[in-house]
């Protein structure tokens, strides 16, 4: 069968979501952000909620998320996305509000905001990209950096006595009464991408049901700052990140 006979509209099975813009993402080749943006856009498209969804972008690599997902966006100060999301959701209870944050944004400078938004049980969706490093500023230690991991500010590897321990903030979040769904996912292969997408969809559905805060961590790679190829970074993540940050639902009620 000739390729030309296959590539026809009636045979289309999968392509770019209509909720993604045509702007080329600034992310490095192989960055997990792109995959998460894609599945977030697909969930918004499939639920038909493009006109009802307000996104909050962080400070960090995902600051420009607003260029890529075609919804209304607020660009928050570093760590404050949950505060913006709180007010937005309270003032528009029928909209879907999603805060998209990295590990430095959510688990370091914005710890108070995320803890209290989750504890109040704000009916928002939080997507937490944990790649264990500061991407945009050039690879410094993040709160989630693993022990021994080399970064620009831990050039000889993270040491507990000097730098403290990697923070499992998702486990802390799961302890809070206000959260209804807390899960840890990844997007390095087709199966994990599908699972992560299901988790994000569930988070959005929870938000409509006013069950409380849904929190989806995506264990991710930052191959540039990890100084690996994208494929090698995915493997390194599976071997080193997953044992410390195990995948799966931590809370679902």
């Amino acid at each position: 069968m000739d390729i030309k006979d296959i590539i026809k509209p009636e045979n289309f099975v999968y392509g770019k979501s209509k909720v993604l813009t045509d702007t080329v993402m600034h992310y490095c080749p192989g960055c997990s952000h792109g995959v998460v943006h894609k599945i977030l856009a697909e969930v918004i498209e499939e639920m038909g909620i493009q006109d009802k969804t307000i996104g909050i972008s962080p400070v960090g690599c995902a600051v420009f998320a607003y260029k890529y997902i075609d919804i209304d966006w607020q660009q928050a100060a570093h760590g404050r996305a949950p505060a913006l999301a709180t007010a937005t959701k309270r003032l528009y209870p029928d909209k879907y509000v999603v805060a998209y944050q990295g590990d430095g944004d959510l688990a370091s400078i914005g710890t108070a905001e995320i803890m209290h938004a989750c504890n109040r049980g704000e009916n928002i969706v939080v997507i937490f990209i944990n790649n264990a490093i500061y991407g945009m500023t050039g690879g410094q230690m993040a709160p989630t950096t693993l022990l021994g991991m080399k970064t620009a500010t831990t050039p000889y590897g993270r040491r507990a006595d000097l730098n403290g321990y990697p923070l499992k903030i998702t486990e802390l979040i799961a302890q809070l009464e206000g959260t209804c769904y807390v899960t840890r996912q990844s997007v390095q292969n087709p199966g994990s991408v599908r699972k992560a997408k299901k988790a994000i969809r569930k988070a959005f559905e929870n938000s409509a049901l006013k069950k409380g805060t849904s929190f989806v961590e995506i264990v991710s790679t930052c191959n540039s700052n990890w100084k690996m190829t994208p494929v090698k970074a995915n493997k390194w993540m599976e071997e080193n990140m997953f044992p410390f940050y195990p995948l799966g639902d931590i809370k679902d009620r």
Partner: protein
Amino acid sequence: MAFKGAIVVDIEKCKGCSVCVANCPTQTIALAKKVNSKGYPYCYMENPDNCTGCGNCATVCPDSVITVYRVKI
């Protein structure tokens, strides 16, 4: 039931990360020797006969550059 598939790559938007290559179960995809205008080698169907249209490549593509088509045979 067997399937036959094909992909279309948005060559200019491909960054050549090769995550699709690593995730293709039928060794259909490879990175081209040529590069796009940004200097990235882009992915293409090196062995188009192998493609089953499973969509794994497009699912893991961070830049949504792959469109997948599939027919039953």
